[in-house]
């Protein structure tokens, strides 16, 4: 008896109180209930594992090894996904291609998000002349069809960057070019979203209060207003990954993207286009992987949109 009372007395406020949920915990609770998003997350994780863990079983050399005597073999025990037009193993190539495609998707979105936030935040916060100039540039970029921009830039810059060695792997310089091109041609929508967010958020009293405390503009932009608009940015960035993977597939399909022997899901499709009927396994597997990735990312983005929407306060 005595021990229980002394136990209670020794409890500090920390022990008694369940710590309140912070914003990310609330978001996770809402996200968990979004079934398609969870499925998307699981599938995407499996795909990433597939691309990363697969390289433990096959070397890149094997993926690029060609033996024309084995060309265009249908799926078999030895080559589960078949072989391509010069006898390379399609399974190994989807694994290494997956790494490049996912890498392009993620890094292109980093470029896109950086540019989009920078342009949108400055335009929205400062308004006036800065806004006019930045938004006219944005609109000009939007008015040119993206695929056209992609093709012209890929043609112009392609092959200008030498091969790179990263983590012991050799990347064709065209990967970097493609990442930059996709980033530079896709930031406009995000910039508009961020600008709209800033236009409304900067009217909040907490911005005036921050200014009245002597906070500098640059800090108000990036440390006070930006965290408030994180939800639409995260959602847009997620969907951007899917778009970047698709964009890479377009230009690679047109033969302007990442150059063989480096595999990507996109340029594997390019290699398949003469054999659509005679060797369907050439386009089926990379096509299926692109489809699954884009679909699961879109589900994930949907779930994030609902989870991060500050109006959805219910848990």
């Amino acid at each position: 008896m005595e021990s229980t009372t002394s136990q209670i007395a020794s409890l500090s406020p920390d022990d008694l109180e369940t710590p309140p949920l912070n914003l990310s915990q609330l978001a996770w609770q809402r996200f968990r209930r979004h079934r398609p998003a969870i499925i998307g997350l699981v599938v995407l994780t499996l795909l990433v594992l597939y691309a990363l863990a697969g390289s433990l079983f096959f070397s890149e050399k094997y993926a690029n090894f060609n033996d024309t005597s084995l060309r265009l073999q249908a799926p078999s025990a030895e080559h589960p996904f078949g072989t391509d037009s010069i006898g390379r193993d399609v399974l190994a190539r989807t694994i290494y291609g997956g790494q490049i495609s996912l890498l392009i998707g993620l890094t292109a979105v980093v470029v896109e998000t950086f540019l989009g936030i920078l342009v949108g935040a400055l335009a929205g916060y400062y308004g006036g002349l800065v806004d006019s100039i930045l938004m006219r540039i944005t609109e000009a970029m939007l008015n040119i069809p993206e695929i056209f921009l992609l093709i012209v830039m890929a043609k112009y810059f392609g092959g200008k960057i030498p091969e790179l060695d990263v983590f012991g792997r050799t990347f064709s310089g065209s990967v970097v070019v493609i990442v930059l091109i996709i980033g530079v041609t896709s930031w406009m929508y995000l910039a508009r979203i961020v600008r709209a967010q800033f236009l409304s958020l900067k009217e909040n009293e907490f911005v005036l209060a921050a200014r009245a405390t002597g906070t500098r503009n640059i800090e108000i932009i990036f440390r006070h207003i930006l965290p408030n608009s994180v939800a639409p940015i995260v959602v847009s960035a997620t969907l951007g990954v899917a778009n970047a993977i698709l964009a890479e597939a377009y230009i690679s399909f047109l033969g302007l993207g990442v150059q063989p022997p480096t595999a990507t899901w996109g340029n594997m499709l390019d290699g398949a286009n003469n054999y659509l009927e005679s060797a369907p396994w050439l386009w089926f597997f990379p096509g299926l992987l692109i489809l699954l990735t884009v679909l699961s990312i879109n589900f994930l983005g949907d779930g994030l949109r609902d989870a991060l929407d500050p109006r959805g306060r219910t848990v």
Partner: protein
Amino acid sequence: MSTLLEVKDLRTRFHTPEGIVYAVNGISFYVAEGETLAVVGESGCGKSVSMLSVLQLIPVPPGEIAGGVALFRGQDLLKKSEREMEAIRGQEIAMIFQDPMTSLNPVLTIGRQITESLRIHMGMDQNAAEARTVELLEMVGISDPSHRLGDYPHQFSGGMRQRVMIAIALACNPSLLIADEPTTALDVTIQAQIVELVTKIRNQVHMAVIWITHDLGVVAGIADRVIVMYAGFIVEEASVNALYENPRHPYTSALLGALPRMDRRRDRRLKSIPGAPPSLLVEPHGCPFTARCEFTIERCKTENPPLTPVGQNHHNIACWVDIKTGAPR
């Protein structure tokens, strides 16, 4: 007591699609060190805009500070660059706002928001700033402050948020606190607590306060002197006792008449002031209160009365008429 802030002939306008809004039309006032000055007047009379102008916090454009000086310890704040003002805001002059629900950033923790100004102005490191923050929260009456640093604003009630705002304002020991209707959004018991808190802290740290409000009850409790504003002009300036006992401007007298009082018969209706304030879109000619004033004489319609002394102790009014006799002065 030496003068801390002296504003002379301040004029602020806003350029809007409907035309120029004459928000503040040449007001002059001063605050001495450690003194509490109340600024009263109805909504839209230029109370907040004049204080925001002094801190250069009105948006330019559409706003424009068309003239005047604001001498803070002898230096004109209106001539300072944005960078120089950043060093003064929060450190020398702090400000708290009307709605504590919206003036804290919803996605940053309370601790972050208070330590921010300590890091900006005092160059404190994270640990020192946190220690000081706990001290400040204790001072404004938040219980168990060290456990609340990681909390977000939505976990605080309205009164507690206003306490947090006050803690932010006090962080760097400012010599002047501008409180822009800090109790308007709070219920009466919390209002009383906040008024008491500010009074207590003011006496502790010898800080001057400019208290903007339209609640004359609060004014009586807190202020040393009062200025009454109407349509962008100061119409009366007096010590708080002189103002309540002996209002000399028709507007002030009408305002006090509209106030419910414990020592008055309750079966009578409160007197309201007929009409509405003039449009600020028209450059004012004559006295702005003419249309609603019961003492109007011919001169009021053509000439705007300047602020002139009546009686002792800086009791100034802007009126052509002596309201006790109804005769021109």
